[in-house]
């Protein structure tokens, strides 16, 4: 049974598409964390990291109708505590289809993460997996 509360040391995983990948600098652009509805992540919950990575690679696998730029390039991870240190709001927001779905907002009331926070997040994340071309 997964707790409704995401503890500070729990890891969160974000899908990074090719169009957010800075190939020159091998970095993730802050653009990957700027979305008007907040940022969707998967919490690790009761799984291992390998299980999370396998699940995300399967869900975001290349499909015929998905262009190269939109397909999966990497999976980034960060702890909930690291997000909270940046004053971002992290919470569990499971959906009918995604038991581990969680969200990162700019604050409790503002969904869209500001550019400064998105930049800090992009520099704090660690790459848990990378899809090679």
């Amino acid at each position, binding site marked *: 049974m997964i707790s409704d509360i995401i503890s500070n040391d729990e890891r969160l995983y974000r899908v990074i*598409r090719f169009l957010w990948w800075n190939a020159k600098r091998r970095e993730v652009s802050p653009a990957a964390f700027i*979305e*008007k509805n907040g940022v969707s992540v998967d919490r690790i919950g009761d799984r291992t990291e390998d299980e999370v990575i396998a699940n995300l690679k399967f869900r975001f696998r290349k499909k015929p109708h998905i262009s190269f*730029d939109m397909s999966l390039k990497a999976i980034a991870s960060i702890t909930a505590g690291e997000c909270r240190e940046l004053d971002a709001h992290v919470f569990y927001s499971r959906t009918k289809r995604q038991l581990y779905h969680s969200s990162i907002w700019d604050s409790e009331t503002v969904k*869209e993460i500001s550019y400064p926070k998105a*930049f800090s997040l992009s520099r704090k994340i660690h790459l848990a997996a990378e899809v090679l071309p």
Partner: protein
Amino acid sequence: MENYPINNSTSIECEVKDCGDSGSSPTYFRSINPDIAHFFYIQWDINSTILPNAEKYVLRDLEKNIERVVSFLKLPTNWNENGAERFSNKLIDLTIDILYSLSYQPEVFPTGSDSIILEYSKPDGEYLGIEVFENKVNVFRPSAEIKILDPQDTHELSKIINEFNDK
């Protein structure tokens, strides 16, 4: 993207976009006929104009960036699977206009919030980000307040970008 050689029989109705100092750099034209292409450019008399290598490099980066920005038009509604809208022609055109005006070309990325980010990074970690919206431009540097500019004020924007890259 088309690259048309110019000769006496070429006749295409265009609007002119200058790149760099007039007289020493190629002139770029953009078709105003939407049936031809979203845009194309013509390098005027490139074979008889000797350009320093640095300028040729900037031109290739500009071409690459324009192609990339134009490709954002193909991103469908909900391309990020989190409610993103399609990019508007207005935003794409504005971003291309900005790219034309720059001496240093950035890396370009789309957000899920109706904006396009132009980024400059240095090996020591220094960063400059320009977030382009339809009605404004936000200039971001870590440890500084966000500066909001009029998107038509390419002079001020170029100044900021040149200062960052010239250091």
